C-alpha cells in the first residue's frame, strides 16, 4: 500500500539520520559539517510535516517535538539539530497566528506590557484546524531551506568590509565559513593568514592547504606559539560550533587561548557564525556542555607504561565568554555579543527552549 510504504520510508530516513548523528561528530572532525546537518534536519522535518497524520497545529508541534527530542538525544553536542527543530516550531506558531488573523508579534513574547494588558489567562492551545496550514508551513520551511543554502555566501559577501590590504589575520583550526570568508576577500585584497594548527586533531593543516590553493599567503603555527605571534596580528577571525544564549561560544578547543591572547593585545576577535548555530542554551549545564573523545590522539596507546599511571583527557570544545568577543558576523549582518538576546527572541519562541 502506498501510504504504509511512505510511512516506512520516512521512519527509515529518520533512523538513518539518527545513526549518522551518533556516529558522526567524532574528534577527527565531523563527518558532516554543521551546515549539512542543519539542511538534513530541516528536510526531514519538512517530510514529517508532509507525511505525518495531524489535524491541528498542536498535534504537529507535538510530533515535531517528539522527533526533535530523539534527534537531540542521539548527539547532544550537535546543537544545530535542536536549533532547526526550534525554528520549525516557531514557523508553525507564526503560520497558525497568521491563519487566525491575529497580529503575530504582540502575542509572542512574555513582557511586562503583556502582563499588564492581557485580558485573561487564556492559553493558546493551537487546536483550531485550518485547511491551508499544511501548505503554508511547508512553504515557510522551504524558505528556511533556501536561507540555509545561502548562509555561507551571505557571510562571505561581508568579507571586504572587514579585511583590508596587507593585514595579518589569525585563525584557529578549520572552519568552512571562515575559509569561504577569507577566499572571498582574497579575490580583491592581498593579506597574510596565520593558522594555529589546533592539536591534537590538527585541522589547521587542512585549512592552510585550502587557503594556499586560493593563493593566500598562509603560515601554520603550533598552538604554543599563539601568544608569541599575537602581537603582529591585526585581527582574529574564527568559526564556532555553537553560539550560546549569553553571547558566549562553544568552539573547538584552543579558541579560549586565542581569545585571551587577543584580549591581552587588544586585537579584535571576529566570529563568523551563521544564524542556525545560535542556540538558546546557557553555559551552565556542565554535563552536556563538554564532549570527550578517545585520548589516543593526545597520548597514543603505544605508550603503555605511562598510560597506567596518568589520566588522559581529550576534550573537543572550549567555552569562550562573551566579554572576549568583538563582533559576530552572521548571514543577517554584523552584531555585538550583547545583542544576541534580541536575535534569539526573533528566531525562537521562549516556550520551546526546553524541548
Amino acid at each position, binding site marked *: 500500500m502506498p501510504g504504509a510504504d511512505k510511512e516506512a520510508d520516512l521512519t527509515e530516513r529518520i533512523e538513518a539520520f539518527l545513526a549518522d548523528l551518533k556516529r558522526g561528530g567524532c574528534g577527527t572532525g565531523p563527518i558532516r559539517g554543521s551546515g549539512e546537518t542543519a539542511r538534513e534536519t530541516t528536510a526531514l522535518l519538512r517530510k514529517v510535516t508532509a507525511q505525518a497524520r495531524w489535524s491541528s497545529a498542536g498535534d504537529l508541534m507535538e510530533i515535531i517535538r517528539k522527533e526533535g527530542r530523539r534527534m537531540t538525544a542521539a548527539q547532544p553536542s550537535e546543537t544545530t539539530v535542536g536549533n532547526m527543530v526550534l525554528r520549525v516550531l516557531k514557523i508553525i506558531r507564526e503560520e497558525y497566528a497568521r491563519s487566525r488573523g491575529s497580529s503575530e508579534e504582540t502575542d509572542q513574547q*512574555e*513582557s*511586562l*506590557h503583556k*502582563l*499588564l*494588558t*492581557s*485580558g*485573561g*489567562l487564556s492559553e493558546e492551545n493551537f487546536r483550531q484546524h485550518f485547511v491551508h496550514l499544511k501548505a503554508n508551513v511547508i512553504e515557510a520551511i522551504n524558505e528556511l531551506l533556501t536561507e540555509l543554502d545561502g548562509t555561507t555566501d551571505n557571510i562571505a559577501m561581508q568579507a571586504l568590509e572587514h579585511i583590508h590590504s596587507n593585514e595579518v589575520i589569525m585563525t584557529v583550526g578549520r572552519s568552512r565559513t571562515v575559509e569561504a570568508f577569507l577566499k572571498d576577500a582574497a579575490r580583491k585584497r592581498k593579506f597574510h593568514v596565520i593558522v594555529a594548527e589546533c592539536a591534537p586533531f590538527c585541522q589547521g593543516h587542512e585549512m592552510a592547504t585550502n587557503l594556499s590553493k586560493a593563493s593566500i599567503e598562509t603560515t601554520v603555527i603550533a598552538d604554543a606559539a599563539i601568544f608569541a605571534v599575537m602581537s603582529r596580528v591585526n585581527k582574529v577571525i574564527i568559526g564556532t560550533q555553537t553560539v550560546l*544564549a*549569553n*553571547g558566549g561560544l562553544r568552539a573547538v578547543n584552543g579558541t579560549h587561548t586565542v581569545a585571551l591572547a587577543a584580549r591581552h593585545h587588544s586585537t579584535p576577535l571576529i566570529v563568523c557564525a551563521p544564524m542556525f548555530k545560535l542556540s538558546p542554551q*546557557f553555559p*551552565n*549545564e*556542565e554535563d552536556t556542555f563538554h564532549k570527550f573523545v578517545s585520548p589516543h590522539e593526545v597520548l597514543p596507546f603505544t605508550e603503555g607504561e605511562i598510560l597506567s599511571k596518568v589520566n588522559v583527557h581529550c576534550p573537543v570544545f572550549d567555552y569562550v565568554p562573551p566579554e572576549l568577543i568583538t563582533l559576530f558576523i552572521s548571514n543577517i549582518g554584523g552584531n555585538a555579543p*550583547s*545583542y*544576541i*538576546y*534580541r536575535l534569539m527572541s526573533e528566531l525562537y519562541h*521562549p516556550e520551546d527552549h526546553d524541548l
Partner: protein
Amino acid sequence: MQQPSKMNEEELVEYFRTQMRTDPDMASAVAAIRTLLEFLRRDKGETILGLRESLKWATDCLTEVDSSVAVSSGGELFLRFISLTSLEHQDLSRCKKVMEERGELFLEKISLSRTKVAKLCHTFIKDGAKILTHSSSRVVLRVLEKAAAEKKRFTVYVTESQPDTAGKQMADALRRINVPVTVVLDAAVGYVLEKVDLVIVGAEGVVESGGIINKIGTYQMAVCSKAHNKPFYVVAESFKFVRLYPLNQQDVPDRFKYKADTLRTVSDLSDEHPMIDYTPPSLITLLFTDLGVLTPSAVSDELIKLYL
C-alpha cells in the same frame, strides 16, 4: 447597598501594613499594588485624570511609610497599568470594571513569578556548589529551596549585612531546610570569595541600564566577584523594573537611599548611612526574572516595551 467610602490616608497606610503583616512572604511592591487596587475600588472620582491624581497621591502616602524602590516601582507600574487600560475604554465605569478584573489577574500572575524565577535559576546551581549571597532575599531563598528540593548538595555563605543583621534571618531560614550555612562578616566578602563558586543576590529594583539597586554591600560584593572571576547572578521579579538610569552612586535619589523615618526627621542627610547601593550592569553576569533569563543589555528592551 452602601458603597464603601473613599480611603483616606490612615486607612491606606493601615491596609498596606495589614497586607505586609498577614503575609510576610509577600513582596512589598505586591502589597503596594494590592493596596492601590483596593483604593481604586473605593475611589469616587468622576474622571480618569482625577483618578490618576488620586492614585499618585496614594502612592506618595505609601512611599512615606516604606521608602524602598520596590514600592515606588510597584506604584509606577500600577499607574502605567491604569493609563494603558484607560486608553482602550473611554467610559469611566466600564474602564474601572476592566481595571479591577485585570488588576486581580495581574496580582495572580505576579504571585507566580517567584516560582518561575526559581525554576529558571536552580539549574545553574551544580551539585557540590558553594554559594555566596547577601543579606536576606525571599527570591534567593525560594531559588535555594528549589535547588535543595531537586536533591542538589550545596553550602551557602551569607553576609550578616549590617545595620539590621538581616543575614541572620536568611541563615535561620536556610538551616530550617537543612542547608549548611555560614554567616560571614560584611568585611569578609573578599576573604570568602576564593572558596565560592557563584554569587546570587536579590534586587530591590532593577534599573534601565540593567544594573540593580539592592541592600548596601551588594556593590562591594559585585566588584570583588568580578576581580575573582566568579559569576554574579541576580534574581528579581519583573515588577521590580524601574525607570531610573543612575550613572553612579550619587545619582540614586535620596528618597530611596534612606528609611522613611530618617527622611522625615533628619535635616542633614550627609551624616546618615545609606541603606542601598547601585551595582552597574558591567558587574552582573545574568539576571533571572519571570520574563526569562536576561543579559543586562536585555533589560532596557523590556522596559521600553512597557513604557512605549
